[in-house]
């Protein structure tokens, strides 16, 4: 029995990239939500949480409308990169990002909020600007929590099915991630392949969650 490992590699690559993007944008957003008061904050918070509760197909539908070849953003992408976004592995990254970013923002916010504000105040009285306070006090103190949040986001990206199949489709060798490949294998009656992929992805997810727990801030430690 020859097993095609492409879906697993694709999933890992997509999840890694999606996690990087989620951290890059999500931590800043989490900081704003944790530390600043602004109008519409609750609305932003609700909007960020929404992907956690909506069915993945709904998210996929939104993304198709938003990023499809006829849409403004879709045409912009095509003009810059020369190919449409939908039904490519890049689309799978977008799908995974949307699937995992809410989790990252939520848990990063919690760990940023748990930073004792006295340290930030002390930094300000010493003349540190807001950016310096953020990157040399708040982030280092919340580092473990943010790493745990990133691990969670990575694990969640790995497991996306619904959004990916709507936006990136199911093209073997190109956009078929592991979750989609398992569905495909079961549909085709290919139980052996499904079994191997299921075991592989479960083991990886378990390892990541174990890692996330290890780096999570422990009681009494910053």
């Amino acid at each position, binding site marked *: 029995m020859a097993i095609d490992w492409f879906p697993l590699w694709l999933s890992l690559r997509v999840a890694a990239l999606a996690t990087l993007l989620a951290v890059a944008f999500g931590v800043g957003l989490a900081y704003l939500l944790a530390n600043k008061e602004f109008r519409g904050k609750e609305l932003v918070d609700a909007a960020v949480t929404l992907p956690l509760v909506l069915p993945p197909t709904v998210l996929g539908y939104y993304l198709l409308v938003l990023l499809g070849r006829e849409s403004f953003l879709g045409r912009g992408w095509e003009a810059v990169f020369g190919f449409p976004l939908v039904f490519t592995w890049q689309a799978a990254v977008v799908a995974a990002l949307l699937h995992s970013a809410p989790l990252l923002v939520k848990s990063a916010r919690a760990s940023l909020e748990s930073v*004792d504000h*006295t*340290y930030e105040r*002390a*930094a*300000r*009285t010493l*003349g540190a600007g807001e950016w310096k306070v953020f990157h040399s006090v708040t982030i*280092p*103190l919340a580092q473990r929590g943010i790493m745990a949040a990133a691990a969670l986001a990575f694990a969640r990206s790995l497991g996306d099915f619904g959004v990916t199949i709507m936006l990136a489709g199911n093209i073997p060798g190109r956009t078929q991630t592991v979750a989609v490949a398992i569905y495909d294998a079961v549909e085709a009656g290919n139980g052996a392949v499904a079994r191997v992929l299921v075991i592989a992805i479960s083991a990886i997810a378990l390892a990541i969650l174990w890692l996330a727990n290890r780096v999570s801030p422990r009681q009494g430690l910053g």
Partner: protein
Amino acid sequence: MIHARLRHHFSASRESAAFTLDVDFQTSAGITVLFGPSGAGKTLTLDSIAGFVRPREGSIRVGGAILFDAATGVNLSPQARQCGYVFQNYALFPHRTLRQNLEFAAERLPRLERHRRVNEMLERFRLQDVAGRKPQELSGGQRQRCSIARALLAAPRVVLLDEPARGLDAPLRLELYAVLRQVRAEFSVPMLLVTHDLDECFEMGEHMIVLESGKLVQAGSPRKVIDQPASLEVARLFGLYNLLPVEIRSLDPSRNSSVLRLGEHELTGSYFPGRFIGDQVTLFVRPEQLEALPRDGKPGPNQIPVTLERAAERAESVRLEFREGIVAAMTRSVWERSKHTREWVVEFPPVWIKVL
């Protein structure tokens, strides 16, 4: 020099009841202590000066610089205020070594200058040997000195200290006082020290400001404030007075004397300007200003016969509580000689007799 005029109403929230802060004070060089019970608004006053809390009305000037002025809308950010703040838990960054903590405060200086200044501070506060350690690996005294050195490195206009002695055991407390005296001698920066410890006011303060429930109730030198509280409320705040109702029987400005009636006894004191014969006033005197003696024959002038009810022994002194509601203090060695006596006299030295 600090001149602060603050007014702010805090509406009731989940954590605290409604509270109005309304203070207006000026300080000079040296250490000014901000004294008051918990919840008097001491920390809120510090936070307003540092820029963490924005008062509704008033103005804050430190050394000629306007940090805040509600009327003209001036409100400098905490970064721009240059107020050194020594927090109760010291707030040393736990992810940085002691040296890195100090460097953080001097980052605006050129590299060589920064290096020189940090080393100088480490030396001055005897921290060179532990400069590479994280705050968690330092002793309490080292953390304390590091926190003060860090605040001073940023060249502050004023250093604000929020109850730095709270929760410290006695040796560490004395160490802190020594460090603060060193700062006072070596740096010409005014310090505002929050405390609710009367001894600390006496020991450290050149100037004392008394706050109670958001209001300034008295200001002056600690000795003056403690010897002559402005009101019964302030006297009660200090919590260590005999407060006795008396009637003024006679006043003689030419001989600077007065006679007070306490129960059926008469006491001679100095002249009280602005009082009249027949006034019902409160005599206040601290326990250690009274002299308690075993009763021996007829009480002399300014002595009142009393009966001992309870003696509370302390580390350094003994408090004698008499049935007549008078409390006196004496040293342990004096107490040892007459500890089985029940009948005493309490002598009121005329100079300590003050009325409110």
